[in-house]
């Protein structure tokens, strides 16, 4: 397994004295906190000072925008009751508070400022008592978030329609409830010096290979960066081939896809704030699989999968093959087809390569525009694109009708690729192939294909060859690669990725675990 050792840009945002512990005096602590947070108006510090009995002074600190107000109010009321209780075994307020709230889940104590800040920034309320060098943190986080909705980028006809949302706990829940087993392990990590983003690793013990889990964990821990805003940050920072255009982590919005990946021995990575989960290792063929393949009849799914592979090739090669054949190898076009292509090329002022570039670029622009613009004017773009640019260009004789057909075929084929990252990669490579075709003809296209194949052979995802199970050819694995064999014939989990528990059919790990 290749170990990536890369230096990730160091951020300057470390706290001045990360290990500074709380002071004894309440006021000292509050001053320090206020200085560190500076001008943040949403930092609320409620200080209850008792001049008569200073040891009963305490402070309640929270960040207004992060907390659930009702919970905080409720806590304050509880504290008031605490004051009034007549007989006290001890007058140490801190111990009393701890006892009072002991039933609350996730009650935390700590001594360092840095931990205290982490608590505050997670939306928890922190209590400080005078004379104590410990804080008490009570979860009051505001749990507002988007409801569970249907994924927008990976829609299915049959199968679960839940999609991940931006809250990491919800996402984990969606996967957890699909595998009710204590073998599912979850590890929480924090990445990003400034954003302190919660990142979770999930895998199934015994089914996932130890070395892979360890490697992913190590790589994530080695990340040194200020911010993680999305799973793609993680992918870009830890992927094996950092210059490759191909995705090496499968990103998905669908919990059932993640579940299936976990059951094959893969590791899922959740990032707080992102409705996508990553699974790794991911091989090339997976990017053309859809979770739906397993919800339909295996014959249908096999055909559809084949169709996707063909479409991937066509979307990659159609424009370049057209350019190569019509400018270099007219002899291989059947005569009637040549005549009709020639008739349409009559009077077109541009060479085929330029024509293809114009149209493909126009399509890419339309596509990008379609993604960026407000949804309400979506139909306007399609009218402009289809009518104005397509039909008018052909009628004006600037673009040949065949080219419009080629570009639309390319576009439609590209939408059959279920994974957006993969379809993006193919989009870009298509342009390289077009240049090769325009310069060297089919010779260039095939040189490009050879180089592309070599590149794909070289890629690895967490040490697993990217083209597995095609290259290296593993006969049994191919039951679930280009085709989808029936479930009863898929007896083993993927070779190289699976851990000790190889068989899909019988749960051998249950014997050990109970």
């Amino acid at each position: 397994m290749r170990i990536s050792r890369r230096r990730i840009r160091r951020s300057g945002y470390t706290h001045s004295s990360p290990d500074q512990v709380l002071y004894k005096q309440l006021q000292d602590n509050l001053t320090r906190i206020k200085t560190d947070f500076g001008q943040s108006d949403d930092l609320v510090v409620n200080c209850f000072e008792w001049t008569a009995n200073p040891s009963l002074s305490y402070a309640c600190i929270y960040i207004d925008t992060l907390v659930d107000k009702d919970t905080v109010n409720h806590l304050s009321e509880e504290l008031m009751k605490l004051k009034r209780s007549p007989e006290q075994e001890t007058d140490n307020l801190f111990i009393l508070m701890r006892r009072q709230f002991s039933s609350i889940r996730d009650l935390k104590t700590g001594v360092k400022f840095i931990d205290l800040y982490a608590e505050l920034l997670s939306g928890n309320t922190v209590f400080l008592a005078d004379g104590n060098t410990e804080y008490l943190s009570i979860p009051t986080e505001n749990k507002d978030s988007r409801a569970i909705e249907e994924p927008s980028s990976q829609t299915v006809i049959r199968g679960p329609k839940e999609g991940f949302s931006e809250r990491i706990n919800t996402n984990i829940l969606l996967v957890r409830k699909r595998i009710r087993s204590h073998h599912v392990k979850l590890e929480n990590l924090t990445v990003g010096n400034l954003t302190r983003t919660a990142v979770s690793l999930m895998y199934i013990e015994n089914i996932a290979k130890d070395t892979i889990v360890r490697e992913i964990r190590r790589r994530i821990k080695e990340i040194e960066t200020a911010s993680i805003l999305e799973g793609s940050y993680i992918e870009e920072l830890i992927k094996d081939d950092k210059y490759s255009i191909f995705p090496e982590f499968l990103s998905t919005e669908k919990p059932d896809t993640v579940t299936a990946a976990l059951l094959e021995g893969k590791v899922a990575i959740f990032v707080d704030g992102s409705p996508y989960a990553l699974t790794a290792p991911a091989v090339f063929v997976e990017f053309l699989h859809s979770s739906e393949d397993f919800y339909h009849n295996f014959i249908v799914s096999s055909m559809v999968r084949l169709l996707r592979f063909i479409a991937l090739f066509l979307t990659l090669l159609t424009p370049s093959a057209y350019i190569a054949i019509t400018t270099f190898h007219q002899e291989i076009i059947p005569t009637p087809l040549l005549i009709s292509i020639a008739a349409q090329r009559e009077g077109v002022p541009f060479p085929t390569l330029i024509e293809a570039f114009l149209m493909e670029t126009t399509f890419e622009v339309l596509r990008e525009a379609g993604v960026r613009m407000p949804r309400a004017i979506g139909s306007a773009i399609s009218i402009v694109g289809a009518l104005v640019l397509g039909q008018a260009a052909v009628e004006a004789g600037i673009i040949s009708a065949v080219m419009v057909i080629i570009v639309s075929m390319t576009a439609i084929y590209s939408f059959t690729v279920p994974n957006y990252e993969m379809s993006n990669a193919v989009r870009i490579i298509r342009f390289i192939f077009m240049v090769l075709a325009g310069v060297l003809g089919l010779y260039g296209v095939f040189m490009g294909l050879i180089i592309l194949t070599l590149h794909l052979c070289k890629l690895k995802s967490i040490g697993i060859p990217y083209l597995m199970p095609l290259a290296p050819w593993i006969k049994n694995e191919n039951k679930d690669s280009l085709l989808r064999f029936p479930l009863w014939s898929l007896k083993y989990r993927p070779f190289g990725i699976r851990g000790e528990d190889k068989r899909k059919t019988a749960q051998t790990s249950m014997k050990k675990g109970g």
Partner: protein
Amino acid sequence: MVNKIKLMFFFCLISVLCSACWSSHEIDTLGISIAAGIDLTESGYAVYHQVLNPRAITGNVETVGTPVYLFTQYGDNLFSATRKIALETPRRIYNAHLRMIILGEDMARNGIKDAIDFFMRNYEFRTDFYFAVARNKTAREVLEILTPLEFTPGLNMFESLKLAQERNGLTKEVNIVELAQIILAEGYEPVLPGIDISSGTADSDSAMTTLSGGKRLFYNGLGVFCDDKLIGWLSEEETLGFNYILGNAKNSPEYVYYNETDQITFELIRLHSKISAALKDEKPSINVKISIEAIIAAMEGDLDISKMENKIIAEQLLESKIKGICQNTVKKAQHDFRCDIFGFGEVIHRKYPDLWKKLKSNWRHEFSSLPVDFEIAVELKLPGQIIKPMFRKEK
């Protein structure tokens, strides 16, 4: 190290980009030659190229001019004449889609070896086009005719030749490889289909006859070549006989008379022929076995074909008819042309190589007295969609 790799990559890129679309030609700069013709004139060869006019062919573009234009240039050799066409058109003559080569009769009588060498040698020609000889005409006359339905005359000739051999056996497709092989082979002489022009109808104003004044191209018989020179023509029936002997006429119609007046028409559905050589008293002889499967296409009279004895009568009638045709054809080749267009010499060569050495120097003479016998086996497969004669009165 990294820099070296980068430098190498850079040079690879440069070498790719500097090649600058070598040998690339946009389709709209090509004059796609769909048929070519060669005539012999006083000033050497006349070479014609029938070049597609793509604007006139597809329906959606405004029609300008005729579907094809004919370019003519003269020269001492075919290649330079072809290249001279650039004098009159900016489009590069592109020969890879050539479908037909029409040889003028004069040219054919004078020998076609040089032409074949050119078409075999030049890299731009494919080998899937057919040859035809303009019968009693010049190639130019043939190539000037516009054709209906398939507006590209070259394609029209190409497709119609293929179809005719299959549907009626009255002509034969010959491509350049076959032609060259037959010319090279000992004891085998080539034939080429003849192409002719039907005279246009008088009232050329009628809407039906607007193209070329109603003149149409049609295939007419086979031209018999000796070595590479045209020496004569086979008639329609002899062409059929030729195709029966060589097993080419797989679906042709055939009819016989029964009771002097009543015709029975057959459609052949399968035909296999096998030519074999034998020795009789040190003399070679040829045996041609033709096995035919036929169905009844039409019947006159009241022969009840559902009866076994009548079926056998019909089969025998067809057998003797075909035998007669074949014998006449062989006779014509033996006595009129003295030219072995069936490749009998080749069969003898293969079976008796030693004997062939003695025969080959005088093969034309030997051929004319070669005994050829026929065994024809006809099997009637189906009486058609009805069985009994349609209008027979039941007694």
